[in-house]
């Protein structure tokens, strides 16, 4: 539905090419697209107005006229300003001098407070901390039970007090942490509207009673224009210290991040990227800027790849590639490496031009298909894996039987493997760097390039024939 802003800007500047210098009117035209892009991403309209004003000041004149590629320069300025607004550097949690550090979570109903209390506990435990979860949502049915289940999942004790009011529960929770030697208290509170005076006053009482070191506002990344009012309401009442942006694993552009940030001025500390307890990431302003602008999230992809891929094995693999000695053993190995990076549909979404815009629709990532391929390879003898050329008709039949697949499947796998080898031979000259294992993935070039085209509307619903995951899809 929305093409990426980068694409639109390219179009705008294509019209301008040949004119030489960029006039104020040209910049205005580009900024009109930026404005629409930001509004489509749910950035609050007032925030957009200020933002565009600032860009105009910077873009008209010297800055923009100097460069050879004006399109890139405007994108760069927009990206820089956006990144700056989203928060220059990462902000870690702060811990109080005296234990326990109290972290209070607050937000609207359904933002994801309870889930993120669990995720925070898990993350802090991994860092060697000893957190205590405190359940103070006495309103929503089974909210306390939910935190108890979550606590069990992350092996963290959960404290609550039957029949007590939230302030009492918070106080008793802190006392319990002191008694039991927990150095962190994570306080889960009930969802509430920022205009609910009674419930906002309750949060203020909790704040006075337990003096949290961190008050984190939990916000759904899909929030629309309302984000500003929500942030204002909570910030005025509580002076929040930071934000958690949740449900970023959806396809929202997440402009709410910018709205909230510009109102609260406090750092976005974490982002939630899934329903599992380890789906919590540190916030990267530059990546969020690219996402809001619709330019994909190459950095996250690269980082994930680096985290999952064994560098030594990657180097070995690359050597084999260059020598063209790539066999089914390596294939299996690579397959497992990539799967370690996370679900494939998530990984593909991070690629500019593929994410968000629905380009992946139809291209269903069938993980069970990979399992089938693995089954076929595992049904080969070691010798067959090393020398696929020896796999004749009867061997194919045996492999098919052994893996519970059809002989046609085996044929297809062998053909694709040969094709892939050919393709890799062509690409091996450009591999190296972070991701030698993902040839065939388009557009993983620099994030500011803005040249990553979304597949045309025509084949949006079908897997584009030019795009093949290295392991082949049947």
């Amino acid at each position, binding site marked *: 539905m929305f093409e990426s802003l980068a694409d639109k800007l390219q179009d705008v500047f294509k019209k301008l090419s040949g004119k030489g210098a960029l006039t104020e009117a040209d910049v205005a035209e580009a900024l009109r697209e930026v404005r629409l892009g930001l509004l489509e991403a749910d950035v609050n309209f007032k925030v957009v107005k200020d933002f565009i004003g600032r860009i105009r000041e910077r873009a008209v004149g010297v800055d923009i006229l100097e460069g050879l590629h004006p399109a890139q320069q405007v994108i760069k300025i927009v990206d820089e300003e956006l990144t700056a607004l989203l928060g220059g550097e990462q902000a870690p949690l702060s811990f109080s001098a005296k234990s326990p550090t109290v972290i209070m979570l607050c937000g609207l109903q359904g933002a*994801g407070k309870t889930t993120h209390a669990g995720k925070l506990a898990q993350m802090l435990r991994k860092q060697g901390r000893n957190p205590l979860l405190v359940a103070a949502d006495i309103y929503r*049915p089974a909210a306390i039970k939910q935190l108890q289940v979550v606590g069990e999942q992350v092996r963290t004790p959960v404290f609550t007090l039957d029949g007590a009011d939230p302030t009492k529960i918070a106080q008793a929770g802190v006392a319990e942490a002191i008694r039991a030697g927990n150095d962190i208290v994570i306080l889960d509170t009930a969802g509430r*509207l920022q205009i609910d005076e009674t419930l906002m006053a309750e949060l203020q009482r909790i704040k006075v009673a337990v003096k949290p070191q961190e008050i984190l506002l939990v916000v759904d990344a899909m929030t629309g224009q*309302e984000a500003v009012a929500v942030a204002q309401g909570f910030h005025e009442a509580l002076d929040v210290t930071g934000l958690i942006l949740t449900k970023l694993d959806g396809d929202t*552009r997440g402009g709410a991040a910018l709205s909230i940030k510009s109102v609260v001025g406090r750092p976005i500390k974490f982002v939630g990227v899934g329903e599992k307890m380890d789906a919590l990431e540190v916030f990267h302003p530059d990546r969020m800027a690219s996402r809001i602008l619709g330019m994909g999230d190459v950095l996250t992809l690269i980082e994930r790849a680096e985290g999952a891929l064994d560098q030594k094995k990657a180097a070995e693999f690359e050597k084999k590639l260059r020598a063209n000695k790539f066999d089914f053993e390596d294939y299996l190995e690579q397959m497992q490496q990539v799967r370690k990076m996370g679900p494939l549909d998530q990984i593909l979404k991070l690629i500019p031009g593929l994410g968000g815009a*629905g380009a992946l629709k139809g291209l269903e990532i069938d993980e069970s298909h990979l399992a089938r391929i693995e089954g076929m390879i595992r049904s080969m003898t070691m010798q067959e894996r090393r020398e696929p050329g020896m796999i004749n008709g009867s061997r194919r039949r045996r492999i098919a039987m052994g893996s519970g697949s059809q002989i046609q499947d085996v044929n297809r796998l062998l053909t694709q493997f040969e094709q892939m080898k050919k393709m890799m031979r062509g690409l091996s000259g450009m591999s190296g760097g972070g991701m030698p294992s993902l040839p065939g993935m388009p557009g993983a070039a620099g994030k500011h390039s803005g040249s990553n085209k979304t597949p045309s509307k025509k084949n949006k619903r079908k897997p584009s024939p030019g795009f093949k995951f290295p392991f082949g899809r049947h």
Partner: protein
Amino acid sequence: MLKRGLFKSIFQKVDQMFTGRGKIDEELLEELEEALIGADLNIHTTMRALDELRAMVADKRLKDATDVTDHLKRFLWDTLMAGGASPVLSVAPSAPTVYLIVGVNGVGKTTSVAKLAYKLQREGKRVVLAAADTFRAAAVEQLALWGERVGVEVVKGRDGADPAAVVFDAIQAAKARKADYLLIDTAGRLHNKSHLMEELKKINRVVMRELGGRSADETLLVLDATTGQNAVNQAREFKSAVSITGLILAKLDGTARGGIVITIKDELNVPIKLIGTGEKPGDMEYFDAQTFIDALFE
């Protein structure tokens, strides 16, 4: 209720804007545009409305500010009413009538299911609930507690159980109890996760099989009124996976206006059927077009 909810507030804002000036200028149209975008109307719908207004101002069909508001109201009204007024909730020819409630995480599905059950029960209907969110921690307990609170039976699955199996059990139970309605609560799922949408299709298949080829009488997508443009993606994906028949717009008790539903009606032709206005059992209303239009033109 609708007076302070939904779209009324757009017009309060626009009315304020027009007070004290009768002339139409570009500044006024821009403010109008901001008012619509501020209510989370989709940018394309907004631009379409504005283009129409500008064209009519240009050829003098709209002469003063009052004309402009009137026309804007008509534009939104036409958009919402295209294809006739929102139909009421469908009822099956033979009981039980089955409603499937779907949506992304945290929009208020479980609460909406409970409130709808309460509403139907107060209309004298026998209602059974299926707690088919076996994924989220304590979601089953949450619905079970609601069931106790509003006094309806809840068919539960164990945590981690196959939701389609829970639905199967619930349909048998609803038939055995001669229930008029079965409301199925499902786990929250982001619309871009294909495996979770497949799970939903499977639930749908079970419903169809057990109802003798009939699909759920209503498949209602719950939307959070604070959600912005992404609501359109949600509606589109859920529609293509399980062909939703209507929307429940939840959390309209805040200051959010949920204007995105206009675009969803416009682009996907999915009508709003119910609105959620609070956390109490009685806080749900049918989306009544007449009441709504009255409030709009008051």
